[in-house]
């Protein structure tokens, strides 16, 4: 390396140093530290005490841990496919050449721009058992005893799943971009062959946008297993009977309310492993279904 090259390298490093320093201090160090603390009894204020794998073994006997994991997986298993299908369907509809298309696109994207606290407060009212818009609608449809969405333990998770569909604007935008990349020539050929709208969707659109569906699936797995904000704002410590105590909420409680940072770190690593495993499964099982042009 010549002197000039060294100088350029140094200059380059200096300019990206905000990111490097930020990454080292605020990402890498906390990740490594959390691994260490997960083997300690640590409450932030006093010196961490090494306790080996006790936090991990405690987790297996902690019924609330299992409940939070169950709640989270329940949410993910329903909310994720629901979100993927809804956003895809809306994106396909918004891709049709109809009047006022831009307006519709803006309307569907709008909820994603609203701060999560504001959205949660609105939904608190929509889901209100007596005065809520949703139950009012259900009563108009003849359902005389609609659910007490947030007060009944069996309805808290479905309520949050319903809410999650509200925020699919981002996925819609990604799908829309992918849909516009599908070559028109393919549809024109299909039209000449007399293909129906469903067949065009099934045999052209879906294969062509499959990498984007895969991307949304992986992001969805990660996002739905980390679900926190709405549940925490609307149902605090997990709602009635901890029916909506999600993994991330229980992790937060341990870290910042009960000050069991060691246990919370161990929980974070277990969550990481769960997400890693599910992502691996998703990648393996969808490999043959994804079409990458040029491969």
């Amino acid at each position: 390396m010549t002197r000039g090259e060294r100088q350029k390298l140094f200059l380059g490093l200096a300019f990206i140093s905000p990111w490097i320093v930020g990454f080292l201090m605020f990402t890498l160090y906390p990740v490594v530290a959390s691994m260490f603390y997960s083997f300690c009894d640590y409450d932030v204020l006093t010196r961490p005490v090494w306790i080996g794998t006790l936090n991990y073994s405690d987790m297996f006997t902690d019924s609330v841990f299992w409940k939070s994991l169950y709640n989270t997986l329940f949410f993910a298993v329903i909310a994720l496919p629901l979100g993927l299908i809804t956003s895809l369907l809306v994106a396909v509809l918004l891709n049709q050449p109809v009047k006022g298309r831009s307006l519709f696109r803006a309307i569907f994207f709008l909820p994603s721009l609203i701060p999560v606290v504001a959205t949660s407060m609105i939904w608190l009212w929509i889901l209100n058992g007596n005065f809520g818009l949703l139950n009012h609608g259900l009563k108009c449809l003849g359902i005389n005893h609609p659910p007490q969405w947030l007060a009944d333990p069996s309805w808290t998770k479905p309520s949050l799943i319903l809410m999650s569909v509200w925020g699919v604007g981002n996925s819609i935008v990604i799908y829309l971009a992918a849909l516009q990349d599908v070559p028109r020539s393919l549809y024109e050929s299909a039209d000449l062959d007399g293909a129906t709208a469903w067949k065009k969707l099934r045999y052209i659109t879906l294969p062509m946008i499959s990498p984007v569906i895969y991307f949304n699936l992986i992001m969805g797995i990660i996002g739905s297993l980390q679900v926190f904000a709405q549940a925490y704002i609307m149902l605090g410590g997990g709602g009635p009977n901890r029916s909506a105590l999600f993994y991330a909420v229980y992790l937060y409680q341990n870290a910042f309310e009960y000050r069991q940072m060691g246990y919370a770190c161990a929980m974070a690593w277990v969550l990481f492993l769960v997400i890693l495993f599910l992502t691996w499964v998703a990648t393996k099982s969808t490999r043959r279904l994804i079409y990458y042009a040029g491969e």
Partner: protein
Amino acid sequence: MKTAFFALLLTVSTLFPGCAREPNDRTADGRTIIEYWEKWTGFEGEAMQAVVDAFNASQDRIFVKKLTVSEVDQKLMLAAAGGNPPDLAGLWSYSVPDFAEKGALIPISGLLAEKGITREQYIPVFWDLCEHRGFMWAIPTTPSTVALHFNKRLFREAGLDPKRPPRSLAELDEMAEKLTIVEVTRSGTSKSVRFAELTKEERDTKDFSIIQLGHAPQEPGWWIQMWGFWFGSDLWDGEQTITANSSENVRALRWIESQVNKYGLENLRSLGASFGNFSSPQNPFLSERVAMVLQGVWMHNFIDKYAPHLEWAAAPFPSEDGEQMPNVTIAECDILVLPKGCPHVNEAFEFMCFVASQEGMELLNMGQKKFSPLAETSKEFVRDHPNPYIEQFINLARSPNVKTVPRLAFWLEYRDEMQVAADHMLSLTASPESAANHVQDRVQWKCGRVMRRWDLTRKERLQEWSEYDAR
């Protein structure tokens, strides 16, 4: 190279400004600035600001700068851990054991003794709330006790004597039935009748909707985790054993369950969903939809603000055995603490002493419309107090049956578990015994862990605290 140097400098300068303690801790006239974090906003914040202003006006050496901080306990804990805490902070009495055992506070027993501030000067329960493991960690600021608040107009309409509130839980149940109005369909037409007038069949089928409720433990439900106090429970034995599944607690859970069985799960849920926010005119007590609630001394402020014409009164909340166990209440208080690592201990403590003086306490508590935690108050304080039942709340604080949350470092977890047990009763998803046993197992396990850790650090901590106090 110069450019690279500036880029590096920029990086460093953007990363670290937040870490630096403000170098200038003096006012223009040379007074030491005390940084004080407090949680209060609104009129409560203004009341404390008035005390701060009075102190600052009396000083030529110290200037207190009050900063309103949300979630002050969590932020204080992290600031103390980072070695950059304020000089003084306002917390809650239940924070004391946790913060003290984790080394986040400075013990003030020695400082209090030096200034001649003793337990005798206080209503004992409030002093004791600031004590843990033999050391004082805080001074009480604004105290509270809870009592039954009831609607006198609804009492009269139900044929009850508004001067005769319930004296036992059985009486409360009986009165609640008379105060509850339901809508029921009889011979094809909808009718409003009092619950007490329902037929046995109507009670059994629970095919009615509640228009007005006498009382329900879940409204507002803020102390439902400690319902056992009114059955004679203490929640722990004061040593190393918690008593979540004591017979008293099981009876309390059974009583909560009995209320749901009586009025109907869906009927209560449906009614509860129609209640507005606590701090609004739609508050069910203020909008006269619930006749009796367990509430704190602050309730008067909300009545005054949102329902000034409400005819109400306060009385001790009745216990299971009203004769043997009268005047049961829960006492809590806000406190002032010195965080570990605070830069100006003596100056901050001087402000604490000012707040603890009769003048400071009365100024603060009159502003917040609460009562003074001091044993002696001026005649004018009670005479001019806007809450007509203030003496009731003071007397409750002095009651031999006054209860406090267990002074345990893991109280918040214990409380959450008790809340889950109560939730099970409210949703009829577990028996009182199994819910209480679950709490017992889970919290006792936690208790064991905390106690083991305390045993390991006890000697070191006690020595450290004693040395600090001796200084």
